[in-house]
C-alpha cells in the first residue's frame, strides 16, 4: 500500500512549481474535481505570490499586444469562452462521478460522458473517487511511453486487503485486471498493449477491495470502492 499523498503538500508543491509533469497534471485534475483541493492551491498561491509581484516589470515586445487582441477578436463576448471553460470543468466533475451509483458490482456498468474521438498520443488522468468527499486515487496514462501510473491520494489503508485496479467496458466482455495498487504501482507497456487505445475514452476505471495480493479468481470479488474516467490533460 503506497503512502497516501498528503493533499496539503501536493497543493503546496503545485503552487511552488516543483512538481514533475505527471504529478502536475494530476494536481490540475484534482483542482478541477475537488473544490477543497482547489482552495488549498489558492491559499498557497496567495502565500507565495508576493515573490512574483516583487519582480521588476519587463516591457514585452509590442507585437504581443496585437497578437493577444487579435486572438480574442473573434470572441463576441468573453462569456462565450467562459462557458467553454466551465463546460470543461463540468466534464471533470462528470468524469469523477461516484461509484456508489454504479452499485457494488463491476457488471453494472454505466458509461459516463459522451465518447469523443479515439485517443491519440496524449496524456490522460482519471480521478478515481467514491461518492463522498475527496478523491482516492489518481491514474495517469501516458500513451507515448505506454505506461499507467496510479497514485494513492485519499484512499484509506486497508490492512490485510489490497486495492486492485480494473478496466471496464469499451468492448470488454468482463473487467480486465490492471494489477494490484502497491507502493510502486506502474503498469508495464505490455499490459497497456492489451488495451485498445481507440477505446480508452469509453473505458471506466474502477478500484475494488480484494484479499491481500489481489483477486484470487482474476475477477473482482470485493466491493467496487472508486471509479473514474480518463480526461485529457493537454
Amino acid at each position, binding site marked *: 500500500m503506497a503512502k497516501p499523498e498528503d493533499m496539503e503538500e501536493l497543493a503546496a508543491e503545485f503552487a511552488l*512549481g516543483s512538481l514533475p509533469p505527471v504529478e*502536475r497534471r494530476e494536481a490540475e485534475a484534482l483542482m478541477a474535481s475537488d473544490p477543497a483541493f482547489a482552495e488549498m492551491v489558492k491559499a498557497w498561491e496567495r502565500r507565495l505570490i508576493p515573490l512574483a509581484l516583487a519582480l521588476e516589470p519587463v516591457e514585452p515586445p509590442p507585437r504581443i499586444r496585437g497578437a493577444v487582441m487579435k486572438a480574442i477578436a473573434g470572441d463576441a463576448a468573453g462569456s462565450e469562452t467562459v462557458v467553454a471553460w466551465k463546460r470543461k470543468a463540468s466534464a471533470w466533475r462528470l468524469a469523477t462521478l461516484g461509484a456508489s451509483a454504479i452499485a457494488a458490482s463491476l457488471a453494472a456498468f454505466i458509461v459516463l460522458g459522451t465518447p469523443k474521438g479515439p485517443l491519440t498520443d496524449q496524456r490522460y488522468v482519471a480521478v478515481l473517487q467514491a461518492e463522498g468527499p475527496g478523491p482516492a486515487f489518481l491514474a495517469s496514462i501516458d500513451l507515448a511511453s505506454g505506461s499507467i501510473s496510479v497514485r494513492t491520494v485519499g484512499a484509506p489503508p486497508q490492512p490485510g486487503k489490497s486495492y486492485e485496479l480494473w478496466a471496464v467496458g469499451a468492448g470488454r466482455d468482463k473487467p480486465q485486471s490492471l494489477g494490484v495498487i502497491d507502493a510502486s504501482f506502474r503498469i508495464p507497456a505490455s499490459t497497456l498493449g492489451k488495451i485498445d487505445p481507440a477505446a480508452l475514452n469509453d473505458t471506466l476505471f474502477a478500484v475494488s477491495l480484494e484479499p491481500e495480493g489481489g483477486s484470487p479468481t482474476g475477477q473482482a470479488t470485493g466491493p467496487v470502492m472508486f471509479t473514474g474516467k480518463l480526461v485529457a490533460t493537454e
Partner: protein
Amino acid sequence: MNSFSEPIERELDGLLSLVADGDKRAFGRLYDLTSGKLFAVVRCVLKKPELAEEALQEAFIKVWQRAGSYEAGSLRPTAWLAAIARNQAIDLKRRFSERMADRAEELEAADSVPVMPEADVAMDLSRLKKCLKLLPEERQDMVLLAYYQGWTRDELAAQYKRPATTIKTLLRQSLTVLKDCLDG
C-alpha cells in the same frame, strides 16, 4: 514600481468584471497595466524569449476566457493574474522539456540562483522574506529556484546532487515551515 498600489488593484478589479462581460477596451487597459509584470514572471521561468512571449500571450488569452471566474476578495487581481501567468509558463516549460531528448541546453540557460528581491515595499513580501530566512540557505535557494524558475524536483536533484525523493522531502518540510510562519 515593485508592487501594485491599492488604487491600481481596485481599477483592475473593475476591469476584470468588465472583461468578464466581453469588454475588449477594458481588456486592452488591463493588458497595458499588467503585461510588464506578467512578462517579468514568465521570463523567469522561460529563458527562451520566444517561449516567454508565447506564455505571455497564452496567459492573457486565459485571462480573457476566465475573467468570469475571478472572484473578488479571494485573490487580489494582481495575484490572480500572476498565478495564471506563472502556471502558463510552468506548463509550457514542462511540455517543452518533456519533448526535449536533452534538456541540458535549457538547464544551462537557467542562470544561477535567483536573488531574493530587495525591495519590500509590500508588507506581505517582507513577511514572506522573514519566513524564508528561517530556512537554511540552501533550502531558501531550492524554494526560490522552484518558484521563480519552475525547477522540478529532478532538476533540483541534479543541481544539488541529491536523490529527487530527498528534494521532495526537503521542499515539503520547507513549505510547512513557511506555512506555519505565515499563518501563525
